[in-house]
Structure formats: C-alpha cells, structure tokens
C-alpha cells in the first residue's frame, strides 16, 4: 500500500537542491508543500523518508506537519471544496452557505464524500473579501455565493 506513495524524481531533485543550499533544514516546509501538492496529503512513509533524507528527526517532521493547518495527514477527495469562514465572509452569510454545502454533499467539515469526489474544508480568508462570501473549489474561486448556488457549483464537478 505504502509504495503507492513514493518520492518522485521531481521531489527527489527538489530535496537534493535544498540540501545543497545554506540552512538546508529550513526547507522542510517547502518539501512538505511539494509532497502535498503531489498526493493531496502527507503520507506517513514519505514523512519518514523526508526525515531521513533531510537529516531531521522524524518527530520534528511530524511536529511541523501537524502544526500548520494546510497540511493534512489523511487522503482527501478528488476536489477540495473550501469555504471561507473569514470575517468578511462570515458577516455576509458564509454560515448559511456552509449549511447548504453540508446538505448538498451530505458530509461535515473536514470529511470526504463516500465516492471520494469531495472533501469539505474551511479556510480563513483567501483575500477576496470584497466578493464575500466565497467558496473555492480546487483553485477556482466562486464569489458572492448564495446557499442556492451551492448545488449548481457542486454539479459542475460531479461529472469531471
């Protein structure tokens, strides 16, 4: 199972590049970002692998991975539905949109749908507060979202 997650040649090259630089251990977060970008989460075996390659204690790698909200340790759905719960979005009704998302996807925050298509997550501001409330699916930002828009947005990703 764990061999499905490997250090790809690109990641390996990146680690090597970092190791050649001054203060090489400081690139741990950048390396973790690379792995998460590849697999959508941080597989256990890879964190151990990173620890060995970068000569950082495994406990420290875990410590960092668990400290930052953006890193996840479990696999996620194909599409990440991020609802912004920042201040601007909150006062513009993000909670109702969140409820609608929960109803549409039939999951709670930080859960993944059974078909593995969607993971519902919350974020704190993506900097488009002027268009609040916003929902981000993967990289695409939807602005001025109403609870009724939610099923329409979700449907767009169902067949992809």
């Amino acid at each position, binding site marked *: 199972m764990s061999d499905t997650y490997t250090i790809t040649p690109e990641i390996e090259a990146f680690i090597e590049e970092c190791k050649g630089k001054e203060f090489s251990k400081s690139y741990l977060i950048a390396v973790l970002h690379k792995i998460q970008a590849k697999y959508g989460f941080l597989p256990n075996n890879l964190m151990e692998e990173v620890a060995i390659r970068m000569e950082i204690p495994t406990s420290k790698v875990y410590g960092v991975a668990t400290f930052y909200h953006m890193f996840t340790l479990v696999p996620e759905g194909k599409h990440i539905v991020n609802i912004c719960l920042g201040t601007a979005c909150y006062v513009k009704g993000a909670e109702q949109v969140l409820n609608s998302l929960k109803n549409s996807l039939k999951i709670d925050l930080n859960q993944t749908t059974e078909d593995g298509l969607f993971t519902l997550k919350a974020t704190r501001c993506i*900097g488009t*507060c002027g268009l609040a409330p916003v929902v981000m699916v993967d990289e695409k930002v939807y602005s001025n979202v109403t609870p009724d828009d939610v099923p329409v947005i979700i449907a767009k990703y169902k067949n992809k």
Partner: protein
Amino acid sequence: MGKDIINNYLKIKETSHQRLKDAGYFDRIKIQVGSATCENASGAQDVYTEFEKMVKASGRSDILLHMTGCTGHCSSEPIVGVFIPGDIPVKYGHVTPQKAFEIFTSHVQGNGGPVVDMILDKKTDRLYNHEFVFCGQGTKCGDKSDKVAQAFKEKIKQLGMEETIKVASGVCFGVCNDMNNTSATACYVFPERVFYGNITEADLDEIIEQHIKNNTIVKRLVVKLDRVNNHFFEHYGDVEYFNHQLRLTLKNCGVIDPESIEEYIHFGGFEALANSLQNDSPQAIIDKIRISGLRGRGGGGYPTATKWANTRNAKGDRKFIICNADEGDPGAFMDRSMLEGDPFSVIEGMIIGGYSISSERGFIYIRAEYPLAIERLENAIKLARENGFLGENILGSGYSFDIELRLGAGAFVCGEETALIHSIEGMRGMPRPRPPYPSQKGLWGYPTMINNVETLANVPVILLNGPEWFASVGTEGSKGTKVFALAGKINQTGLVEVPMGTTLRDIIFKNGGGIKDGKKFKAVQTGGPSGGCLPESYLDTIVDYDSLNKAGSIMGSGGMIVLSEDDCMVDIAKFFLEFTQNESCGKCTPCREGTKRMLEILEKITAGLGTMEDLDKLERLGSVIRKASLCGLGQTAPNPVLSTLRHFRDEYETHVKDKKCPAGRCKKLLKYEIIAEKCVGCTACARRCPVQCISGSPKQVHVIDQSRCIKCGMCFEACKFDAVKFN
C-alpha cells in the same frame, strides 16, 4: 565609482523603453483588463479571452490588450479600461463577455463612442465642456477646499451652466505643502488637464471669465508638479471611487502589467534605488526614512527608521531582511492586491532596506493561500535579477543582494515576527519571548529586520517624492497614507488608500458609498482579531495610530469590516474569539486556556444562559490575558470582546436579561414559528427542513416541533408566503 550607477540605470531604462515602444505600448489603443484573484473570481479571464478573440478577428494591429492587477474596486469587477491615445481613459464595471462585445464595437472600434451605461459612475467627462475636480480629502485643504468648491458651484449655478460645467471634489493632490496661501486649494480641470494651485474664492471669477467663457487657461494659476497624482486621471479615468483616494503605494496597481518590468520602469520604477545607491550612504537613507515619519503598516506602527537603525547598528557577521506578507487578518487583502498588482515596488523597497542595513539576503514570507501573488512575485524576482536589480553588484554599485520566497502553511500566529522567523527556519511557528528583538537576534541568530509589504512599498514613494513631502501628508503622529480593505455590509467593497487623518465616516460613506441595502450603520471593526469595534458615535474619529487606540480599537493592518443593524455584536465578538482560540499556538497558558474560558462564556451568553456576572468575568479574564500572554496574538485576543463590551454593553445585557438577540443572529435564542393564518400548506418548508421536524399534510397548516428544530432557517427561506417567522 563616479556616476556609473545612474548611467547604468538610464541605459536599462532606455532599452526597456525601446521594448515598450516596439510593442506599441505608447501609440496603440489599449484595452485594459484586470487580472488578480478577485478579478478572476468575478470572471475577468473570460472577458480577457473574449477581447482576445475580437482583437484577432478585427485584424487591427493598433489595439493592445493589456493585463493589469486589480484596482481594488472589488464590487464593480471585472473592470475594463479603454485607453484611446490622447483621450482620458474610460473605465467600465461589471463587464461580461457579452458586454465586452458592445464595448469593442462601439468604443474601441469607434462605431458609437463610449458605452455610457456601463461606465463606472455612469458618467463621462465627454458630457461636459469642462470638469473641475477640487482637492477633497487633503489633511490640509480639507474644509476650506470644500468652501471654495461650494462657492464655485454656486457661481456656476447662478450662471445657469450646470449642464455643461461639472464641479466635483476628489482626491488630495498631495501638493498641500506648495500652497503658500492658507485659504487656498487646488483643482484639476478636464479636458485640458491643467492643474490650478493656490486658488482662493477671489480667483473664481477669473477662472469663469477666462477658462470657461474664453476657453483660455489662466496661466497665472497653473502649477506644474511631477508628482504621483499629476497623472492620476490619465491612469484611472474620472471615477469617483478613485478620485476620493490618494494612491501612493497603490499607484501602479491596476495601471501596470505586474508581469512587465518594462512598465514598472516606465513609471519610475527602480529610480529610487538607483538614486540611493549612487548618492546615499545607508545611514543617509535611514535618515530620510526618519524624516518621512513612516511607521510600520503591519499593525504595530513602530517607527520604521528606528527599526532600520537598530538592525544596522546591531552586531552580526551578516544581516537579513524579511518582508512579512503573511496577511493573516481574515478580511484584509491589501498586501495580496499589492503583490498581485505591483510586486516590483515591494521588491524595490526591500532592496533599499537591505542596502541600508548592509544585508545581502532577503526573504519574503508569504502565505500559501495566495498562489497568484506567489507566482507574480517569483516572476518579478526573476525579471529583477535578469535586469540587474538583484544579484551580484547591483547596477554596478558593488552592492549585492538577493531575495528568496518562503511559503507559510496556514497559521495566523506566523505573522508574529518571532513565530515567522521560526517558520522560515523550517520549524513550528511558535513565538518566543522578546527581547532579544529580531533586530538583535533573528533568523539563525543574526540581526534581522522585518517589515510589512505596505511599509516597504512606501519606501520608493518616499525617496522619489522626498521625505519632507511625505511627512506633509497625514497627521502629527502618523504620516502618509494607509490602505484599507473595505468589506462587510458596505456598498463599495474594495481597497482604498487615503491620507492618514481621514475620518471613519469619510472612508465608509464617501469611499465606501455607505451601507448596503439602505440599512443602518452599526459598527466598524478595524484591526481584525486584534482590533475592536467602534459605534456610530465614533464615526468622526480620524484614522491614525493614536486616535484609533484612544477610541478603543487599533489601526491594525488595514482590515475594515463594516457591520449593519443586521449584525449582532456579541456574535461578532464570539466569532473573533473562536478565531484566536483556534489559532493560539498553545505555548502559554493565559492565551491557550484564557481564550477558551472566554469563548465558553460567550457561548453561554449567546445561548441565553449568561448572567450579569459573566460580563464582569469577561472583562477580568480579558485584562489578565492581555497582560500575561507571551505574544501579540494573546495580548490582543480579548480586544474584540472588550471593545464590544465597552461600546455595545446594552446588546450583551439584552442577551443576558431578556434572552434575546435583537439582530436575530444568535441561533439558540431564535425561535422559528409558522403563522397558521398565513400557511397554505404547500409543504415547501417540510421538504427543506434538514431534520424533518415540520409536520403537516398538504393544504393543511404546518407545525414546527420546537424540541427538534436546529434553527437552520431553511424553512424561513423556503416559505414563499411569509408564513414562517422567527424570534
């Protein structure tokens, strides 16, 4: 060394100019489409593609499709500007691909002129013979400018010329210091684009006689200044939203292509750097920053020159400079817009900062939530390197400096400087006690200077226009401008840059166009999770570091959330506390445990279980957390609660005593009911209710089982007959 640096710069400038010229930048018709996270979310990319197709199909080679960052006018995005050489640009709002077609055929191809209906503000100076824009928001001109403008308006009215002459008030032109008459003001005139300075009421008749009636310019009054705002209208067109601002740090945002170093150089980019390297010692730059009075824009308001001097004087084999682009305050997006729209300004400010502390290496710590800003910064760093502004021996000065990007990973506390340093070092972003301050012991133990994005963007502005001039804008203790991010229940959401000293009222009602849907203003939240809420009676407070502090809030980084009568202040306080509680790194007990206890009390109150003692407890806990926490996060976490307790205590009391939430936001205090007389039994509510607690057969009155209702409000939304009510 001689004059090489400037010459080297001028050479680069020349080749860069040639490249722009070859691309037809100066003589082609420009269609400007914004490209930024917000613009793209509004559909700007589709509009861009549409124009691309049309330009191609038209076969015209004299049209240039020009990408820029965003202008900060979020609520009207996507925005498209049409620049016909020689004309004042016209800006369109809410452009869709369909509307793009109309703009293209009518305006760009010249078949019918500007599409007036879609123009921002729905007006164009073309409708008037002349337009006079008076200085409107200067800290010095202020009232008296209004007086002169008013008198002028009167005269125009008496002469029956309102149809052809427009009198408006707009931006502070930033020439306050050059005015020798204390009752004088300044004004800009379209379409001649002349700038009159030193105007008093006594000059008005002459302007009317000569300028309006004889169509000749009153030479005596013309002032010529090559300041930022002299070209203001040529970039922004005549749009009230922009006219009411003094755009210094945002001057290039929405004007230049953020991926083109040529355009940045064309607008004076890297000139401040070249001048500094040529003429100034590091100490001389620090002295200039001191004269300018610049204070840190990241929230603390610490004097920038002092920080620079401290780092310069600190002992260390090497030194670092960090640009703090973590922008964690949810509801603030100044830095994002700046980095997406004009990344070079920040880089230039950073190189100058690096030079002044003799640092060879800088880091930009940026939150990973801003992918587009990261992309643009990476590109800008690369271009700066290729053009000799970064790297070894910059412009032949002998000074070497380079910048590296470091990404955050979603932790608010990493905006705090010591936590940020740990994060760059690749560790958990936990703060540590200060002193030693980073200026003494920072990254890997070396002296480190940390500045906010906006602080650094101010540096080239100050050096180009002169520190004394900069110090003439703003108030006694707060110089220059501040960018605010307007969000919440306000008509025009977006970014506005105004002189320090502008009142909250002006920002909210003049810049922001007032409260949405004609609702009543309730409060403005400044400073995000570290800040506070100010009520209506404080609307005339001016924004500067000291006044906002005194009022019980803070300037913060510039987030401004406007709240209306529909918002509950207890709920807002709870929201912020949930945020800080969640983001507390857990290192020290007062913050970790204290915020949890405060949150519990707020949850009690919003559930209708609070007591009056709880209010006192909140105050006591708050003051302990403030005093005993290790870092700024904990020290300021109670602020939203304490400020709402101070200014909106009655609202807390209503929750406690009457068990009611007047704004209807605190769910647990709500009760949904179906009015029997109005219910037609359409079953819509029952079908929508997520917990199926509404019963009733079709065409019969429906009833809600209160014990199972989760107060989600779905039934209220579902009912088309106004039969569901709450509270």
